[in-house]
């Protein structure tokens, strides 16, 4: 190991009790986020694969009720359970930023969906697409989160 490498390791290593607690807190937080990502990505890819395979055969994918209920259960468990776990390692500044980001995403949804619905009823635009609204919410949430975090 080089001298600069050893110095970098020493400088990045926790020095006191507070830094050890801070490292543990960050590690726990990232573990929860990683677990949630896996829970989201694996079923997401599987559902995408099912839909893609069905589309290749020019038919709509039909899910069994058991599969649909299982997916809904996984989603609810991940969002509620993940939220509760994350709230234990979230400090007051992160919580405030989360509130602001969710408010922003909610406002975006409140503006876009009714407008889109009313314009659709007037025959100006196609019917609102539910997954686009869902994606809009998450994109707004991501943008607002990054904005409040790095501005």
């Amino acid at each position, binding site marked *: 190991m080089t001298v600069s490498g050893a110095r970098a390791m020493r400088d990045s290593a926790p020095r006191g*009790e*507070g*830094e050890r*607690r*801070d490292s543990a*807190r960050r590690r726990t937080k990232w573990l929860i986020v990683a677990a949630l990502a896996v829970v989201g990505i694996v079923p997401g890819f599987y559902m995408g694969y099912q839909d893609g395979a069905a589309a290749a055969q020019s038919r709509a994918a039909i899910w069994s009720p058991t599969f649909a209920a299982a997916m809904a259960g996984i989603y609810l468990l991940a969002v509620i359970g993940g939220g509760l776990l994350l709230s234990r390692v979230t*400090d007051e500044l992160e919580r405030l930023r989360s509130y602001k980001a969710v408010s922003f995403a909610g406002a975006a949804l409140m503006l876009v969906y009714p407008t889109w619905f009313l314009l659709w009823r007037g025959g100006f635009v196609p019917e609102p697409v539910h997954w686009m609204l869902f994606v809009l919410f998450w994109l707004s949430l991501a943008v607002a989160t990054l904005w409040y975090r790095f501005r």
Partner: protein
Amino acid sequence: MVDFEGFVKNRLKVLRAERDWSQAELGGRLGVSRQAVNAIETGKYDPSLPLAFKLSRLFSVPIEEIFDDGVGGPGDAR
């Protein structure tokens, strides 16, 4: 003079430097992130009352010696 930005000034950076603590060290002792300590020190975020009391206990100084809203004593708060 009242700070019209809405944030109070604080001596957190000085108190932390006196103890040779990093922001992460202070954050760990308070149970908040390094970013929260940085935001408080740079005046971008005012801590909650419970966190202000934690800081007061940790540094063994009254809250008024850490934070200053620029208004004055209790009798001046009107």
